[in-house]
């Protein structure tokens, strides 16, 4: 019964979607929202990666909101875990084999390096704070899976997370004081295509990278800690 109703409802939704999307031309050039950004983006922001220019400069305030959503999700996760008092037990953890252990320890700094590279070159090549932060967090995930028993310090990850958020807001407010707009690009734009260019865009992406990396690593830490508790 429930299945039948669901299928009928979804059939109606699918028919409606079919009717509307068959009217939209696919892949044809035409008036687009991003045309201005593509034509004027490099001149206005100094960033050669237009996606970064949109994320950090044109839609910078929205990005702050999205970072806040991420923060709220991580905080909610911490709050839900905190409902149950943590038992101070140290379960015996079976270590991974030597090959896995050595491989993890070898790959960990390399992955961190790649993540950092993606973060700081966000305004030049594809990449940026969000992507690089996710890569950095994946290094910590590898560490948790391969070198069991190792933990990141919770205060350190919380501190880095707060630092990233504060840096973002401070840069925005400084722009407000100097230029009259929130996230006003008050540093010189420099020559487009060089590492130190595009004013505050690399700095903001560095802040976002710090925040995303430490937040996702914290989420992984929370989840692994909790499942350890359950399996006891």
């Amino acid at each position, binding site marked *: 019964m*429930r*299945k039948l109703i*669901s*299928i009928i*409802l*979804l059939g109606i*939704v*699918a028919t409606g*979607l*079919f009717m509307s*999307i*068959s009217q*939209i031309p*696919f*892949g044809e*050039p035409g008036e*687009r*929202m*991003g045309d201005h*950004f*593509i*034509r004027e983006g490099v001149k206005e922001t100094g960033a*050669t*990666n*237009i*996606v970064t*220019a*949109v*994320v950090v400069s044109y*839609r910078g305030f929205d*990005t702050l909101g*999205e970072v806040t*959503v*991420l923060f709220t*999700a*991580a905080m*909610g*996760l911490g709050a*839900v*875990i905190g*409902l*149950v008092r943590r038992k101070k037990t140290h379960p015996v953890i079976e270590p991974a084999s030597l090959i896995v252990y050595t491989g993890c320890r070898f790959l960990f700094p390399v992955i961190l390096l790649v993540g950092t590279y993606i973060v700081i070159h966000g305004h*030049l*090549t*594809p990449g940026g704070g*969000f*992507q690089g*932060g*996710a890569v950095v967090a994946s290094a910590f995930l590898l560490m948790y899976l391969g070198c069991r028993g190792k933990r990141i310090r919770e205060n350190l990850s919380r501190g880095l997370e707060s630092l990233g958020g504060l840096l973002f807001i401070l840069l925005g407010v400084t722009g407000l004081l100097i230029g009259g707009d929130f996230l006003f690009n008050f540093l010189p734009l420099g020559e*487009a*295509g060089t590492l130190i260019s595009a004013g505050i865009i690399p700095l903001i992406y560095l802040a976002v990278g710090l925040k*995303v990396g430490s*937040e*996702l690593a914290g*989420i992984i830490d*929370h*989840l692994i800690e*909790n*499942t350890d508790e*359950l399996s006891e």
Partner: protein
Amino acid sequence: MNFLSEYTYYIGAFSLIIIGLYIILVKKNLMKVIIGFSIFDTGIYLFLITVGYLREGTAPVFSKSGLDAGKMVDPVPQALVLTAIVIGVAVLALAVILAIKIYAHYGTINLRKIKEQRW
């Protein structure tokens, strides 16, 4: 037939959305419902990227000089999706931890067996 070949990406995106919605509506297992949410998310990302697609377009990155600005895909949906993916991961983690807590409290994640969840 022309429609199928022209609109493959739209069809794929909306198929994922419909499959995700079906899983959310029908499945009893909470973990499967969360997987349904994830599939639904993916469909939305694919749809947004498809909206900005331009035939034979290049990535909106001026990595070398002489790239034609008129031949670049729309950067705005890409910017939206790149933040949405990271947020999607965080929200997924929140959903999973709630499922773990529900299991710890009720001893089951079958939505039909949890009395307060029945509808």
